[in-house]
């Protein structure tokens, strides 16, 4: 049984299909990045997991149960959904006290989580005076209040300065190391690339790909650009080796799936002259953008 399991999850808001047959799982001790552009369906999926939005079809379970079935849900799941979810005239400590009372948690947890997110000194300040970054920290404190085994975080890095982002990264890695399952959404892959073990990429409510970061890195392969007067001959030879070639002009090819060295050796073996041979490595971000915006990505012949 996975910590988080989503199967065939669908949500329709009137004519808009926000989430379309989504399935994925998150295991304990791992961080799954939930990626997609704005409007991809990430937040709606998380809200369905947390029982805040009723699915049109499919199931979303936590430790094998729907959120509504969990006894003491804050001890199972901690969530950060919106940085604005605070009463401005309530102090940070009081916000957490309210959550602790509602969740049936020990009062000592309030001080523990304030300390963990570095807000002890600001605990008696009203949240209305908090920066966005401090609100994110307070949201994380509330998520950690029940010492849950599962964390669901919707763009928790929003509003954090670079130091805050690093702090968040270290916190999440530490939480996963403690055996917790973490689902973290973002629309910026680079923001969470150093934190996640695997990613789920969504676009228009559908799962585009689910892969480990290593698999995604492999996909972020380099493009070898070649200029040769015998491009068709070289293309045939490289295709036979499993490469994917795209004509980029009369005497130019863009080749993926092989290294520049392989292209050079193939050309030399056939006596094909090369006027240019360069390798252009694409980034994880390019892969992400290519997956979620195929029109803007590379075409493969």
């Amino acid at each position, binding site marked *: 049984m996975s910590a988080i399991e989503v199967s065939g999850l669908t949500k329709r808001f009137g004519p808009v299909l926000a989430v379309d047959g989504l399935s994925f799982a998150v295991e304990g001790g791992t961080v799954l990045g939930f990626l997609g552009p704005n409007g991809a369906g990430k937040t709606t999926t998380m*809200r369905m997991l*947390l*029982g*805040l*939005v*009723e699915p049109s079809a499919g199931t979303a379970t936590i430790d094998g149960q729907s*959120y*509504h079935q*969990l006894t003491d*849900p*804050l001890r199972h*799941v901690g*969530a950060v*959904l*919106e940085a*604005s*979810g*605070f*009463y*401005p*005239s*309530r*102090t940070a400590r*009081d*916000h957490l*006290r*309210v*959550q602790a*009372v*509602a*969740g*049936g948690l020990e009062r000592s947890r309030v001080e523990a989580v304030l300390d963990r997110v570095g807000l002890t000194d600001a605990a008696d300040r009203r949240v209305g005076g908090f920066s966005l970054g401090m609100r994110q920290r307070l949201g994380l404190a*509330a998520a950690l209040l029940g010492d849950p085994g599962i964390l669901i975080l919707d763009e928790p890095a929003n509003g954090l300065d670079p130091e805050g982002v690093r702090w968040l990264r270290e916190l999440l890695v530490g939480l996963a190391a403690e055996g917790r399952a973490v689902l973290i959404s973002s629309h910026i892959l680079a923001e969470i690339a150093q934190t996640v073990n695997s990613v789920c990429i969504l676009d228009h409510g559908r799962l585009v790909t689910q892969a480990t970061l290593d698999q995604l890195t492999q996909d972020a392969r380099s493009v070898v650009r070649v200029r040769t007067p015998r491009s068709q001959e070289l293309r045939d030879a490289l295709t036979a080796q499993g490469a994917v070639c795209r004509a980029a002009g009369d005497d130019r090819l863009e080749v993926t799936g092989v290294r520049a060295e392989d292209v050079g050796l193939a050309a030399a073996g056939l006596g094909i002259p090369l006027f240019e041979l360069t390798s252009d490595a694409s980034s994880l971000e390019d892969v992400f953008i290519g997956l979620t915006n195929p029109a803007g990505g590379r075409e493969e012949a």
Partner: protein
Amino acid sequence: MGRALRAELLKIRTIRMPFGLLASAALVTLLVVLLEYSRSGAGGRRIVVPPLSGASGQTLIVTSTEFALLLALVMGVTISSGEFRHGTATSTLLAIPDRARVLAAKAIVAAAFGLTFGLLASLVTDGAVLLFLAAKGFTLQLPVATMIQDGAGATLACGLLAAAGAAVGSLIRSQLAAIVGVLLWGLVAEPSLGALFPTGAPYFPYTAARSLTGATAFGHGVASLPFLAAAALVAGVAAGLGLVAWKTTVPRDIA
């Protein structure tokens, strides 16, 4: 249920709005009392304000708790709609996913805190009338039992209206719209409907709540409901609104 009640109580204790409304209820009641005092005994061709020396004049001041009722209603509205306004509904429902339980806890806590509005307003009116009488050298013409019943009625009315407000705040998630709506209902819609349908006026919820305070002058020449009937009617309206809110709130998405 205990957890939900304790959490709602703590929510009220840790923000300023409910206490601001409570203070406003006391202040506005005092202003109304001072206005009634200044007008007592004044007469014109159409309206004659009874003098403070008589039971009618004293009743007019003792029952000047109307605005406390309205503010208790508004307080109830803010308890529920404030969760949507400030986005705290999400964290509330993450801790207690049973929305019916949350709504019930809000209504109960709103009612309990609402009682203090009526109690405070009654203390203001009763205290004021005793001070005015002492200052003028008049004697109290009202039976103490009547003053106690009017005070208890105002307290009960505030509690019931606050519970109804909590249901309205859950039904209408826009806080501004909900507050404007209940104020318009109490100050404009009911008086207008009462003028159009005088025989039905005592059965309107806000008018019935006012009648619990001992207020009799509704301007329609129609007798108000008996105490228990009025209390049952207002309680029924609060319960009905709560039921509608429960039926509509539970399946609604929290976006």
